[in-house]
């Protein structure tokens, strides 16, 4: 049985449990139970956007096998704003690669946007990434030879879909992240903060359901970090997107709606961890 809110597997007798519409639900913590109670329909009736169950990821280094994820179970719901935290090496990025379908589990089940990734071809996974997921990386990961505008358009270009409407949308996005005057600049001509804004604009170009940001402020100073996080939370509030941020910064985590903590390749019960932000009213 899995906690319907955070997805943690509940073995044996549950300390926190509720009834809803004739069914019984168990929770890892009071926090999850309270969350469920506040909006039971969202958790009980809708499929979560991301559902990992007993995911194992082992890196095979020839002589040794390195187990990184050891039975990770996790749920992320449509429209949520999540921070994933945890010690270095706890498997956050590995988990994000699986959520983002850049990698597949060694064992277990991963259902992303209703699709079981273990049953998808390479092309299907690429389509899923292109249409439903936007990535923001710590290293910005812009293509150095392309201008800001061309980078934002890249997901369209790769699909032969960079038409006039796409260009318009890319320009709008760049304006909305405050780079209306930097569109023709190459990444090397932009500051770190500006590059990350370009990356954020790019993540939104195909109007994805999910934005995945792995330490998006890890290479930025604290002032710029604050602005990037403000930008991401503004975009979350004004869109219906699900935003997942991996971070080491407790302050950033505290401003999301829910904090998921990882340890040794698994989620730890977020017993008591507050979810500060509220669901957007939109």
């Amino acid at each position, binding site marked *: 049985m899995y906690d319907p809110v955070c997805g943690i597997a509940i073995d044996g007798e549950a300390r926190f449990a509720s009834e809803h519409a004739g069914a019984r639900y168990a929770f890892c913590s009071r926090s999850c139970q309270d969350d469920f109670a506040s909006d039971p329909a969202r958790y009980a009736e809708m499929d979560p956007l991301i559902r990992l169950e007993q995911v194992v990821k082992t890196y095979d280094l020839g002589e040794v096998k390195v187990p990184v994820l050891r039975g990770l179970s996790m749920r992320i719901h449509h429209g949520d704003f999540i921070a994933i935290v945890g010690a270095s090496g706890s498997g956050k990025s590995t988990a994000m*690669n699986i959520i*983002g379908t*850049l*990698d597949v589990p060694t064992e277990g089940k991963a259902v992303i946007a209703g699709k079981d990734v273990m049953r998808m071809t*390479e*092309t299907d996974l*690429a*389509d899923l*990434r*292109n*249409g439903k997921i936007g*990535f923001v*990386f710590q290293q910005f*990961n*812009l*293509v*150095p*030879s*392309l*201008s800001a505008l*061309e980078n934002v358009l*890249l*997901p369209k*270009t*790769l*699909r*032969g879909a*960079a038409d006039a409407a796409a260009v318009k949308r890319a320009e709008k996005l760049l304006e909305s992240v405050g780079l209306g005057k930097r569109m023709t600049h190459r990444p090397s001509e932009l500051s770190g903060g500006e590059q990350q804004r370009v990356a954020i604009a*790019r993540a939104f170009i*195909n109007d994805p359901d999910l934005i995945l940001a792995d330490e998006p402020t890890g290479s930025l100073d604290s002032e710029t970090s604050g602005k990037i996080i403000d930008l991401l939370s503004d975009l979350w509030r004004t869109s219906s997107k699900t935003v997942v941020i991996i971070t080491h910064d407790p302050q950033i985590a505290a401003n999301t709606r829910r904090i998921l903590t990882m340890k040794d390749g698994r989620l730890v019960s977020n017993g008591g961890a507050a979810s500060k932000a509220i669901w957007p009213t939109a």
Partner: protein
Amino acid sequence: MRAYLQIILRSFLFRKRRTFLTVLGIVIGSTLILTLVLLGDGMERALASQLQAFGGDLVFVMPGKADDPLSGFLRGTSGDLKDEDLRRIRETRGVELAMGMQIKNFRVEYAGETEVMNFSASPWEETRAIFEVSQGFQIESGAWPTRDEQDLLVLGKLAASDRFSRPIQVGEELVVSGKRFTVAGVLKSLGNPDDDARAYISIDRFRAITGERGTVMMAVAQVESGLDVKRVAEDLQYELERRRGSGDFTVFTSDSALEIVGGVLGVVKLVLGAFAAVALIVGGVGIMNTMFTSVLERTREVGIMKALGATDRSILYLFLSEAGLLGAIGGALGILISYGFAKVIEFAAASRDLAILQIDFDPVVVLGTLFFTFVIGSVFGAIPAVRASRLHPTEALRYE
């Protein structure tokens, strides 16, 4: 392909110097091949029309081995054909007329100036019969001399009008190698500056000037009309060989001359073609090398594109097209350069009145070259492209 064009062109611009250096080998290779194709065809056509003007019913006999005809020309062979050989030629079945010919430069004095002129010497009667009929010589003013022992000469159009500051008129006197000659006639232009700049005297006067006796450097035989020129040439070969007891001479017709020159051109083409092939292979290897470097350098970029939804196949096409375009850019530059070359040569030929050497802009050649160089590029870029397409997204993104 069109979708990737922007990405590819940006990448070329981003690495301009490397792109240029990579393309160089293909530029050299395609320039060589195209110059060959363009000039080779033009040259063959020009030669054919020149040799046709030589007279299709004439057989030429020159001293020198048959397998070495060019060195005979180049050495300007000392007259090794005897009067006796000439007599045998005349007696060969199918020969209407035959004459011995000498070609030599003499100093010519006229109106206080001295110039060196090229002279052709042969007996007047046969000269007139053969040249008028077979090569289209026509007197513009004056008349052909009739008696060989008279000190008379005939001038080509340019020889009369261009060599001295004052044009030479019929009836005027020239001093050739110290002997006085009177101009009996001036020819109409033959359309070929070499022939038009020549002067003609009788073989008798030639011998009087030079003191040479009994030999000529070339014999020209006219074949009776209606007979097979090739057959008569074969008979001549046989007769002469019997008389001389060896084959140290060459018998050729305008057709066989064309064959020989064509053969030489063929060898030249083959050698240049081999160079071009090597240049193209070297160019292809250069593209492969650049693509390997490029894929390595852009590992992260491949990871990014995969994260953004590029499939393995689209990465493969992207890098294949990039390699192909490197080739085609080289091909395009090769086209420009070789047409430039060819036009310069055509212009040079035209300014020497050799308008026959004409280079045409052929869309089939242009498109063929672009296609061919694109294929070379993508074939040599295939292994790097496959390598790029197989990169694992997360590994590629971790690459520093």
